[in-house]
């Protein structure tokens, strides 16, 4: 009587062994991030957007994949080292510069009103049909309205400012448009996400879709969600912009990378953001 079962078990085992390693590991618990002892709760796991079409069962904040000490730093704005840069970004917001003798605040006034929601919906297509990130909006204002020099995309001043802007959308779900004028950019980003780059022939999806939760060297892979950017990265003791992170990942596949602020990275930024549609903007998150 036991023979058929054993055979079935053996067959199942053989089958399992010959399958490719579909090894993503879901986080054991998906508690929300509770900021400042209950002031704000940020969900860390939400149902995936429809366009993912079952590629992942749920979308997770990168916070879940970090160790406990790092997680705690993000739950208190006093402990979160990124908040120092947010303060500096707000100083930047109020700093008058350029021939027009204006600051951001001269036109936009209160950052908490004017910038609320911007981070949750960018990158987006502007009125001229060009895909813009938050950095593009900042530099457009600086050059055309403040008549000042554009800020370096990856420089401290820009990162401080984008951190301050991002904070104004904290808790709001990411909701980038992927249809209409945004569609061609989104398609381009999706193509990039699934394209293997570099000598190691790795696509974004190989790690962040197939293997999130698994070890990569001494750390856990996340789903590569961007809702926490700019992040305070302990390794760098400073803020990291999305494009800098993209560049780092592509470089690690031993490929020639795209430039920070390139059209390719804008398209990828849109596609990756759309994979996180529904997760809350975390303002300035803390990661390893």
């Amino acid at each position, binding site marked *: 009587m036991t023979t058929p079962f054993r055979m079935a078990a053996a067959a199942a085992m053989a089958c399992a062994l010959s399958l490719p390693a579909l090894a993503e590991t879901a986080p054991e618990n998906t508690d929300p991030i509770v900021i400042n002892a209950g002031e704000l709760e940020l969900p860390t796991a939400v149902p995936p957007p429809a366009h993912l079409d079952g590629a992942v069962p749920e979308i997770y904040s990168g916070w879940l994949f970090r160790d406990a000490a790092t997680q705690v730093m993000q739950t208190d704005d*006093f402990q979160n*080292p990124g908040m*120092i840069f947010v*303060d*500096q970004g707000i*100083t930047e917001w109020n700093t008058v510069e350029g021939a027009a003798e204006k600051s951001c605040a001269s036109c936009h006034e209160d950052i908490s009103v004017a910038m609320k929601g911007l981070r949750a919906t960018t990158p987006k297509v502007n009125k001229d049909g060009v895909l813009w990130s938050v950095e593009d909006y900042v530099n457009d204002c600086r050059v055309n309205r403040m008549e000042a020099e554009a800020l370096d995309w990856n420089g401290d001043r820009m990162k401080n400012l984008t951190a301050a802007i991002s904070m104004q959308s904290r808790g709001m779900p990411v909701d980038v448009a992927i249809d209409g004028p945004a569609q061609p950019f989104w398609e381009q980003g999706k193509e990039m996400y699934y394209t293997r780059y570099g000598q190691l022939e790795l696509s974004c999806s190989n790690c962040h879709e197939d293997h999130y939760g698994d070890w990569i060297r001494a750390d856990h892979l996340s789903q590569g969600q961007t809702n926490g950017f700019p992040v305070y990265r302990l390794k760098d*003791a400073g803020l990291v912009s999305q494009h800098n992170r993209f560049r780092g990942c592509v470089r690690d596949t031993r490929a020639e990378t795209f430039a920070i602020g390139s059209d390719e990275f804008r398209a990828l930024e849109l596609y990756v953001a759309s994979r996180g549609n529904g997760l809350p903007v975390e303002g300035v998150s803390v990661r390893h």
Partner: protein
Amino acid sequence: MAENVTPRVRVPKTASKDEVIQIKTLISHPMESGQRKDKDGNLIPRSIINRFHVTFNGTDVIDMTLEPAISTNPYVEFEAKVPESGEFVFTWYDDDGSVYEDKHSVEVS
């Protein structure tokens, strides 16, 4: 002169009599040690916060010397017993002579 120096303090607004409360302080400051050299090989002059002093209603709470090995944005956390309502005064002293001050009141019920 150090730029963007901003003190931040967290003190509970209320406490019960003789309660031991937790106080967190942080000041954004580069804390340049004076040991480093720039790319031309010249020593970058020391520029640190060298003293941190806290009083409560004029009484000393802590008074500490900070040394060059303390990293950027020094964070100091301590506990203090509050016998009565009053005001904490936090003072940081910079090498360049600047003094940064922050005040926080506690209501004792």
